[in-house]
């Protein structure tokens, strides 16, 4: 057990499924993480109020004092990734020159998009532009300019920066593990800093923290998410809201996710992700067609243009002269949220990106998802703005009252709302399943010591534990407290991200440098060179055919 630390260059190839009862895990990481998680859940339920206050304080202090650091970090990471995209390392393949991708481009893209954005986009696509339209520190609320700024700010929060952070972590992990033979695990990101010590207790600690943070991140999102699903279902069907229904929902979602994780990446997670993206595309198309189609098409171009023109300005804006505190609750919160999620999403992206070149990787992880996000946010956000600005209104109020319900309020403004609302519920649930199964997969890989095809028993264990944690926190309380705790890991990881830029650049330079071919010592004796005239008249000609 726990012998997976040896570099293994072929480790990303699918190996035959291991037997069911074979539990090949990293003992310290697996058992200590599991124990810590159970302990934490118990402590949180018992000392709810206390735990919640501590992390809330930590989170708001971090935003207040380290906001500038987050803004620096995300911008540096974005510039760094763009440099890699255009630079000379673009042709390096993750996994070596002969590696070939494991998944089709569509399957790959579906998986990383489902893991990376998922559920938040569904609710905030409607809600966020409405919030900024109703109030933002840059313009007067409710004006045309406010609508423009609202979309711009939403694009900033969901656009290039988060995907650049994911690309950065994903690329580092993939490069150091597939090309340099280190284990596929979060500790690998620290190799340039710690060297061989990543195999010791320091590395174990990092992996344990990553496991705990990922599990709580995914479980609390699941717990909070089902409350939103329940609110939506109640609004549509009037079934009421109760912990009982929510626990049943968790059980269903966990059940499907467990099935998907056990089936493995290709048969389970990829298929579900593709189905999920298919449904989401259908919903978006539907909303665009029945909604204000022309307005949305106009807006897409204008929003992207406005975003690109104002990107340097808005992304470095720091509230210095306004002295407001708006940014702490929005931009800084998002930056620390994305950074806190990045080990999990980055690790998943790394796992599925074997065989892509760095240029393909960045195009696929930075630019394509950003464009899809823009399309999505424009369809939902601008439709909401349209209703608010030129139609009956009421969305802004719905958003302030209840974010998940606002999506359904929006859909009700258009024909066939029963159909679209049902489709929306399906999309929400499949998004939950895909983020839940990719979360479990990441934890499985970490706790098996970096094995990209972790043992089935461990997959079963973590997938079920995730659901169990979500359900106990839901019933016992403490979902928000633990979620805040997860987000506070953003600050230390922001510093790690900056170190990663440096380390990755150095690693790539070393890797891409030409390697001299030379021979060692030999025994020789001197010979005089015989003067011999050049071959007569051949002048290089040869007859070989």
């Amino acid at each position, binding site marked *: 057990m726990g012998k997976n630390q040896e570099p293994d260059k072929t480790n990303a190839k699918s190996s035959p499924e291991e037997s069911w009862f074979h539990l090949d895990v990293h003992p310290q990481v697996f058992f200590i993480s599991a124990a810590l998680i159970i302990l934490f859940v118990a402590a949180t339920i018992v000392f709810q109020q206390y735990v919640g206050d501590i992390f809330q304080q930590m989170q708001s202090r971090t935003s207040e004092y380290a906001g500038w650091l987050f803004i620096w970090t995300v911008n540096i990471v974005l510039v760094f990734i763009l440099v890699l995209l255009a630079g000379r390392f673009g042709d390096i393949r993750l996994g070596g020159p002969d590696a070939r991708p494991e998944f089709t481009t569509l399957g790959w893209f579906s998986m990383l998009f489902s893991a990376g954005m998922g559920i938040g986009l569904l609710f905030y696509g409607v809600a966020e532009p409405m919030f900024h339209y109703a109030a933002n520190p840059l313009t007067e609320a409710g004006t045309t300019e406010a609508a423009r700024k609202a979309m711009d700010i939403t694009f900033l929060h969901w656009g290039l920066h988060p995907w650049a952070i994911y690309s950065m972590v994903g690329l580092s992990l993939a490069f150091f593990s597939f090309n340099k033979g280190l284990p596929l695990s979060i500790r690998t990101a620290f190799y340039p800093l710690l060297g061989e010590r990543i195999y010791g207790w320091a590395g174990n600690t990092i992996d344990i923290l990553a496991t705990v943070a990922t599990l709580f991140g995914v479980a609390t999102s699941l717990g909070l998410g089902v409350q939103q699903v329940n609110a939506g279902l109640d609004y549509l069907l009037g079934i009421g809201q109760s912990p009982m229904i929510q626990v049943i929902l968790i059980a269903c979602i966990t059940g499907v996710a467990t099935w998907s994780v056990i089936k493995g990446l290709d048969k389970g997670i990829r298929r579900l992700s593709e189905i999920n993206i298919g449904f989401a595309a259908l919903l978006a198309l539907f909303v665009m067609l029945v909604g204000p189609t022309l307005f949305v098409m106009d807006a897409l171009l204008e929003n992207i243009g406005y975003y690109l023109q104002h990107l340097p300005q808005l992304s470095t804006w720091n509230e210095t002269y306004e002295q407001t505190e708006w940014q702490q609750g929005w931009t800084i919160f998002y930056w620390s949220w994305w950074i806190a999620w990045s080990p999990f999403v980055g690790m998943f992206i790394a796992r599925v990106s074997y065989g892509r070149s760095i240029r393909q990787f960045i195009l696929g992880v930075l630019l394509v998802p950003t464009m899809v996000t823009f399309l999505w946010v424009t369809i939902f956000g601008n439709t909401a703005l349209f209703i608010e600005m030129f139609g009956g209104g009421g969305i802004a109020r719905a958003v302030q009252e209840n974010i998940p319900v606002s999506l359904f309020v929006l859909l009700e403004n258009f024909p066939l709302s029963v159909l679209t609302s049902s489709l929306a519920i399906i999309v929400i649930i499949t998004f939950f399943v895909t983020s839940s199964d990719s979360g479990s997969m990441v934890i499985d890989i970490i706790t098996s010591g970096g094995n990209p095809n972790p043992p089935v028993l461990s997959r079963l264990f973590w997938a079920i534990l995730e659901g169990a944690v979500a359900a106990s926190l839901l019933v016992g309380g403490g979902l928000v407290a633990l979620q805040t705790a997860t987000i506070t890991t953003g600050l230390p990881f922001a510093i790690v991200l900056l170190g990663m830029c440096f380390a990755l650049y150095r690693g790539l330079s070393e890797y891409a440098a030409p390697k001299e071919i030379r021979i060692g010592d030999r025994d020789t004796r001197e*010979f005089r060179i015989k003067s011999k005239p050049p071959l007569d008249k051949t002048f290089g000609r040869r007859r070989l055919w």
Partner: protein
Amino acid sequence: MLQDIYYQYKGAAMMLFRREKDEVAFCGTAFLVHSDGYLVTAAHLIADRAELMVLPMEEVSGFATVGAESVAPISVEIRRIDRQCDIALLKFVQEIEVSMPEHIMGIPEEVPTGNSVACLGFPFGHYHIYTHLITQAVVSAKILSGNETRIFLFDTMVHDGTRGAPLINLYDGRIIGVVGGRFEPQELMPQKLDRSETPIRTNISYAVSIDHASKLMEDEALTIV
């Protein structure tokens, strides 16, 4: 990129000598292909059973003298030879440590026509100029010779000494061919021409696809990485 390729292969391309009693005579270029001490060259350079020797260029920095009265070459033996395709596989007689990166053998099938290539050989060895020259060209055509040998035509004028040199893909820095010599159109289709016709001079040269060398290496039970 050419600088990187020169840096990588400058130690791999070697002068090929034929031993004649206590003297050696220059015949062309050979290059290292495997860390067990294997080299590849053009088979037509090896005319008789004379002992063969190779010599890497001395490590120099800056401008250097190019002549020499005597040299200290390394003995090699012929392991495999394919006269049809004009490829020979040589091996150091003594055990010599070779440091070599993985993935130096390219995939000729995937190299598109028009691709940039470089060749690194000793064109003027017959004139006592013992320095290698790197030249750049493009793949002008990929053709089959009369005996079905896969051949790259490229647009640089190679000289006698460059025969047996590696043809390197500039895109990924891997070896895709073994330089054979100048391309003579009359010789490809001799049956269609009058023998007495004056040879034309082209600046097109040819190289035999490295696949044919890989086959010889496989016959030797070498693993190609």
